[in-house]
């Protein structure tokens, strides 16, 4: 029960509070418009807040005590008006404080510090598929130079780091205090909605501005589908860097700010403010990744898609930590959906790649029987795949779709997977790719008119495959030594086939039978036959020399080995032939027409083989 004394005190307290409020009514007084309460004079602010509290108190005490004679409808209305004036003013102050202390984040420093979070091991490097590429009817290599490369170590996204959310103080503590104080009053007076609106609009504008600085573009899905993949690769790289900053620093800091300001009034409110601020930008951010995840699949896209996948995986826990409220469900869900699509895309691309290798249709034989660009491309590609082993092993879960041993389909090779027990699906895919590559190369080799060249071609290419596998520990580990042995056997087999194809008939000239007449040793070597032999041998050898100097075995060691192997068969046979029969020729006319070469000459000539000399 109020005593007259008390009510007087209350009244005077109320009245002076009311005066203060009215003084600052910007719709009414000039003075109210010109200055801000907060930010200039600490005392002014405190006085004002006290005034607001006073008015609030009288409002609530008025509603509690309904038997006080001081209260009637008019008074009630006046108090409400005063509150409204105060709230309008506080709203302005709130907005003003926010605006003044809103400065765009120092983006550059954020970039440096965010990348320093991750302990990067430079496992990646630029790889270029080499110069000659096949003709335009190839389904795989587009443009002249196909570059398979992925990001440099500083933004390589395959390292696994622990969650590195870093909240930045977006506002000085004093400002936050003021904002808190104002928010409390507004919410107490039932003006929560206004508070959230003001907060959201200013902060969102700031986030938008940060987005611009981070270079986050607004691309439509149509735009993304239309752009050249090379251009997109750069955008993906930039997006990954920017997204990391957004999720871990920008959004996290905004969240912290909301918590700081609205902490005292309950979590729902700071959630609401946070979502007001970041929902739109977050959706905009992820829309790009989504557009990439649904783009048309083709082999060259695999690695950037994996980079994107890795990056998202990496900061998915951060996304879940930052967007942990019910109202942000859609963002978490979208991120998960994008991840899933990226995974699907990776699987699809791998499958598509395998088909493309199988189907690769170019029929123009590579001159000189050297390494086919397809071989290079494929081996480079699977080397890169082995670099991404960590990610892909998790993603690739099923065996390659292939006919069984008895499929009977002549257009696909057979491969029995039960032989390869215990291998991961990824390894099976890689092995399958090599099988398919060989199958295709085999088909291509049949376009060579010269069957020796066909064998040489296979030897070169399978050897290259073996070298590439040996050269990469991860690849070797996945392919396995069994496979490697088989492949080695294959190219050795090809080498043998080549030798047979070329040299059997040449060496046939140096055989004994058919040269002796009447079967006795010393008498009757048919001079005619002998001359024929020499002539034939010379012609054949010259032809072989002419053509096969234009052939190429790129690998130095293999080239040497084959030459040695040829020499080992050729030279002794020739020497022996010369030894036995030269006298017969030299005793006749024009021996130089028949014995054109010494063994040393042949030895030297063999050194020309497989050098890839241009046609003279």
């Amino acid at each position, binding site marked *: 029960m109020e005593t007259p004394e008390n009510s007087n005190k209350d009244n005077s307290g109320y009245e002076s509070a009311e005066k203060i409020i009215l003084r600052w009514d910007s719709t009414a007084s000039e003075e109210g418009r010109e200055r801000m309460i907060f930010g200039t004079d600490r005392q002014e602010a405190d006085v004002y807040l006290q005034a607001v509290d006073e008015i609030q108190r009288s409002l609530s005490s008025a509603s509690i005590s309904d038997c006080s004679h001081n209260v009637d409808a008019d008074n009630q209305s006046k108090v409400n008006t005063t509150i409204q004036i105060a709230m309008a003013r506080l709203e302005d102050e709130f907005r003003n404080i926010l605006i003044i202390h809103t400065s765009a984040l120092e983006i550059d420093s954020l970039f440096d510090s965010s990348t320093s979070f991750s302990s990067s091991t430079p496992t990646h490097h630029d790889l270029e598929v080499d110069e000659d590429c096949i003709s335009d009817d190839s389904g795989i290599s587009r443009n002249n130079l196909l570059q398979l490369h992925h990001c440099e170590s500083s933004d390589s996204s395959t390292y696994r780091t622990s969650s590195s959310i870093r909240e930045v103080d977006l506002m000085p503590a004093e400002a936050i205090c003021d904002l808190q104080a104002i928010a409390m009053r507004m919410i107490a007076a039932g003006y929560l909605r206004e508070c959230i609106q003001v907060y959201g609009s200013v902060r969102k504008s700031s986030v938008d501005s940060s987005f611009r600085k981070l270079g986050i573009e607004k691309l*439509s*899905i149509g735009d993304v589908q239309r752009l050249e993949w090379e251009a997109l690769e750069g955008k993906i790289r930039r997006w990954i860097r920017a997204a990391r900053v957004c999720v871990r620093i920008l959004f996290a800091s905004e969240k912290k700010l909301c918590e700081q300001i609205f902490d005292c009034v309950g979590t729902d409110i700071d959630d609401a403010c946070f979502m007001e601020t970041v929902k739109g930008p977050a959706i905009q951010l992820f*829309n790009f990744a989504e557009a990439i995840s649904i783009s048309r699949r083709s082999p060259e896209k695999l690695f950037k898609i994996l980079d994107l996948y890795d990056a998202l995986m990496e900061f998915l826990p951060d996304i879940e930590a930052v967007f942990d409220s019910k109202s942000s469900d859609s963002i978490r869900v979208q991120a998960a*959906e994008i991840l899933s699509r990226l995974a699907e895309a990776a699987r699809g691309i791998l499958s598509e790649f395998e088909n493309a290798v199988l189907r690769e249709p170019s029929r123009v034989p590579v001159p000189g029987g050297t390494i086919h660009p397809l071989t290079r491309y494929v081996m480079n590609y699977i080397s890169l795949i082995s670099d991404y082993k960590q990610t892909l092993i998790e993603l690739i879960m099923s065996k390659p779709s292939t006919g069984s041993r008895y499929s009977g389909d002549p257009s696909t090779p057979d491969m029995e997977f039960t032989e390869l027990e215990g291998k991961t699906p990824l390894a099976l895919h890689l092995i399958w790719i090599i099988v398919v590559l060989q199958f295709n190369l085999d088909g291509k080799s049949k376009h060579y008119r010269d069957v020796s060249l066909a064998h040489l071609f296979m030897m070169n290419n399978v050897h290259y495959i073996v070298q590439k596998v040996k050269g990469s520990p991860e690849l070797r580990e996945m392919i396995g030594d069994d496979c490697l042995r088989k492949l080695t056997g294959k190219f050795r087999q090809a080498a043998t086939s080549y030798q047979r194809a070329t040299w059997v008939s040449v060496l046939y000239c140096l055989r004994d039978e058919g040269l002796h007449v009447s079967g006795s040793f010393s008498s009757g070597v048919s001079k005619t036959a002998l001359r024929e032999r020499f002539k034939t041998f010379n012609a054949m050898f010259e032809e072989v020399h002419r053509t096969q100097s234009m052939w190429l075995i790129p690998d130095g060691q293999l080239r040497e080995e084959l030459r040695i192997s040829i020499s080992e068969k050729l030279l002794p046979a020739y020497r022996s032939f010369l030894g036995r029969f030269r006298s017969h020729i030299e005793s006749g006319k024009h021996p130089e027409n028949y014995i054109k070469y010494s063994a040393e000459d042949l030895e030297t000539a063999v050194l020309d083989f497989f050098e890839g000399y241009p046609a003279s």
Partner: protein
Amino acid sequence: MPATDYQASFLGRISIRRNQVIAMDGNHEQELQDLELFSKHVSERFAELLSSPDDVPFDALLSISWLRKLLDFFLCCEAEFKGILMMGNDPSQISKPPLDRLIPEFLDRSVKALDVCNAVTTGLESVRHYQKLAEIVVSALEQKPIGDGQSRRAKKALTSLMSAMNVDDKECSAAKATERSWSFSRRGVSSKDRVPEHFRSVSNQVAKNWSAAKQIQAMTNNLVPPRGADGSGLASPVYTMSVIMVFVMWALVAAIPCQERNGLLAIHFPAPKQVNWAQSIIGLHEKIGEEWKKKEKKGTAGLLDEMQKMEKLGNILMDFTDSFQFHGDITDQKAEEAAAHAAELAETCQRMEEGLLPLQMQIREVFHRIVKTRTELLNALDQVGKSSPPLL
């Protein structure tokens, strides 16, 4: 067969086709049945959308619940369409005429539809914003008796709301969207010079040159009913589904504020006479077109029924708060009227509260479906390459 035969009735067309083929194998029969069924379902569902508003319970055209029905309609048709597409016996059909042209066009339309979905989702955020502002108004006017303070509060919120709706609309109709920027050094904002506090504009999440109207216009490119022999097989359902897709996107954009809608009305729907759902779609198009014309005269924001109500009520309540401010006392009758209008506004807000999120989720579902079908079609196209024999 002369082309005019295909202008005959739906049933007539089927019988002609049956006469053409003497021996039909069971699968072909099944396919035809599926196509018929598809067409039938489409026309039934279209008719439901168009039902007279006198029916109870019918959803007002372009209300949130009507839009949800529309999206349901899309999803059902899409599911059936996909079934027809994927059950086709001969997958290589896709690479042969006329599908070799129609499918890529369809895929292109799909991509545009995806962008429209995203733009509309952003637009719904704006609608949510209006809802929040309207809730302030409701909250202010809920208290009885309405005092000066509440009236002022309501007026402030109403001013923001109305200018937000107008600004967004202008930006949606403007040839280019200008970006707002606050001068951060600015101190002291007077309430007299109040700039709408929402400086978010719907254009914020969308690329500058992107125009919803232009996208939809582009979607109608090459959208012609299949003629002659093309009319059999998959060409017809592809056409039907395309028309549905374009119509749904068009209706969404008409209802919900999103960037750049100039010329939306001018978009012509090539509805062929011979399909049985032609009437319904023409009818819907006309109705929505009428609303749009009215809108252009009045200069209101998007056609969403709830938004129109909000605008109407907003204006009424604005008058009320004005009269409160300038005339002081108000009659009990006026107070009651205002309270009734406030209650209506509250109801509209409630419908938004209940319906906007599900609507957004449905749009997302539509997005997913379109992506899925597109991906499968792309895969199928790639597969077709596989079946050609490699050269030995």
